[in-house]
């Protein structure tokens, strides 16, 4: 088998195993609670009968292994089971399926993340490249301080400052991003503007620092100096000699930051009351609706793993040593 294929398959296998292990961890966190979930929810004074009834109603009376496979099997098909919310009565008409709750929220979050990525990725790469090319200039120094400050600030600080100035003092944007399934596309875009700007600022800061660092280390390679001394034009040096070797670091930078975005949405959605999966997770944690929380955690973790996997695969398929074995 071609080494590239082999390495890619190995990496995919590893990614799959990681995902499996993560699903076990997420699932078993529910099992690890001393005294069980029922006791923790109903309180210690609950009679054994109440606990048993509660467990039965939630399906918690069956062995953990069985439930794990049911859960994972369902999750693969997009079915995350039933929500605990309103489960007390357990009448069929009150049952809410986790996937039905998550579905529209997932779309909203994806919408927000995509909107951010469209702005943030090209801007960050361009600014990072400039900082690398003009390193130690005033531009570079200012960029360094500004990005360091942005990275070190909590997301909600950036978010509230933007809200305070851009929505309250000067009414440029909507202060809150309430949308629903019937919101028209462009209104959705304008309502999601502030969370997008917040996330973009945070992501750009991270991303351009990483871009700058990897471009600088790339440009320090002897073969770049050689290309210069061969009399190539600066753009030829960059396009023909630096770029073919830059895909791996660039992919890593993008994947890392999109993965970071996944986490960033949680806080930003809460600040702007944007009905995404991040806010859903926080709500479900507050109400201890475990099936929802677990499903959200699994989705976040899977996205995170997938992005890193993708970056690794880009690095593998652009590696000349693997592409052209001895």
């Amino acid at each position, binding site marked *: 088998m071609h080494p590239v294929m082999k390495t890619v398959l190995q990496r995919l296998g590893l990614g799959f195993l*990681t995902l499996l*292990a*993560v699903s076990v*961890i*997420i699932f078993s*966190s*529910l099992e*690890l*609670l001393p005294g069980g*979930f029922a006791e*923790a929810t109903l309180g210690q004074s609950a009679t054994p009968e109440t606990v048993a009834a509660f467990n039965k109603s939630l399906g918690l009376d069956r062995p953990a292994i069985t439930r794990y496979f049911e859960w994972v099997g369902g999750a693969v098909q997009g079915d995350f089971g039933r929500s605990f919310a309103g489960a007390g009565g357990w009448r069929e008409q009150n049952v809410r399926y986790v996937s039905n709750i998550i579905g529209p929220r997932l779309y909203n979050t994806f919408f927000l993340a995509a909107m951010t990525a469209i702005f943030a990725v090209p801007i960050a790469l361009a600014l990072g490249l400039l900082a690398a090319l003009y390193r130690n200039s005033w531009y570079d120094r200012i960029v360094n*301080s500004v990005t*360091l*400050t942005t*990275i*070190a*600030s*909590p*997301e*909600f*600080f950036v978010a*509230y*400052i933007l*809200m*305070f100035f851009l929505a*309250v*003092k000067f009414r440029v944007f909507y*202060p*809150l991003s309430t949308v629903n399934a019937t919101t028209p596309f462009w209104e959705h875009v304008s309502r999601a503007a502030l969370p997008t700007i917040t996330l973009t600022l945070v992501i750009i800061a991270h991303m351009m*620092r*990483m871009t*700058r*660092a990897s471009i*600088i280390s790339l440009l320090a390679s002897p073969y770049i100096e050689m290309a210069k001394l061969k009399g190539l034009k600066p753009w030829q040096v960059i396009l023909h000699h630096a770029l073919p070797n830059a895909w791996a670091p660039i992919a890593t930078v993008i994947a890392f930051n999109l*993965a970071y975005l*996944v*986490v960033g949405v*949680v*806080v930003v959605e*809460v*600040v702007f009351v944007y009905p995404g999966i991040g806010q859903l*997770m*926080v709500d*479900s*944690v*507050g109400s*201890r609706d*475990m099936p929802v*929380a*677990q499903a*959200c*955690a699994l989705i*976040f*973790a899977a996205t*995170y*793993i997938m992005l*890193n996997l993708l970056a690794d695969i880009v690095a593998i398929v652009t590696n000349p040593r693997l592409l052209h074995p001895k």
Partner: protein
Amino acid sequence: MSTQNVDILHMRTKRTWSQDAWRLLKSAPISAKFGMFVIAFYFFCAVFANIIAPFGEAEIVGKAYAPPSAAHWFGLDQIGRDTLSRVIFGARNTIFIALATVLISFFIGGVLGIYAAVTRGWMDQIVSRIVDILMSIPVLIFALMLLAMAGKSVWNLIFILALLDSTRVFRLARNTALSVAVQDFVEAARLRGEGMIWVVFREIIPNILPTLIAEFGLRFSFVFLTISALSFLGVGIQPPTADWGSMVAESKTLITFGRPQPLIPAAAIALLTVAVNFVVDWFLHKTSGLRDGQ
């Protein structure tokens, strides 16, 4: 290397440690000096909170949401407590909780990481794989889920975050210790017949200490931000304990009325973490020049 250079270097060693430290501090760029000043100021506030703060932490002194006045510079909160006092007490609570978390995290991650690097072998393999898996779940998400399960308490918060954060410390400690452990001077110590204790404490740790100190700063600021975020989301530090993250959450509705109160505790958080980052940035530049931009 000329003899002249060596003589200059030799003279340098004759200065005392504190003189060296003082010269180093004086040579720091303005951003690092600013950072150090801010950190010192915060720790001062944290330690002497009950002396400095004009009012008590949970003391109700007036009307809810009273605007800033001469007596209450930052106004009052949603149940009439003095915001300035709570910001000062918040310094104590949040900083010490973050510090405790990072210390535990460094203890777990540092010990395991250095041990794994020195012994290598199966223990290293197993722990490294587990850490890889744990690190593939974002900290905030993992913490949210575990806190939902374990219930909201300060100790749960500290232990859960310390555990999750120790994976990062493990990785760094292991990798830096490994890069030292493969050097000839460690091999020389092994050939001499030195035991593990000597190798770890005399050969490896002195060489990875600068990196670990810098990392301590970065981890502190990361943990501090995570705790603030969790508190802001309502699962971190619980009321009535004053804490900057939850103070933002409690007063957030004021923003929509054009009052900047929630920005005060948020700015307090930002200022501290920015200060720590400025100092770490300078320290890293000074000690290695590595980790540019990470």
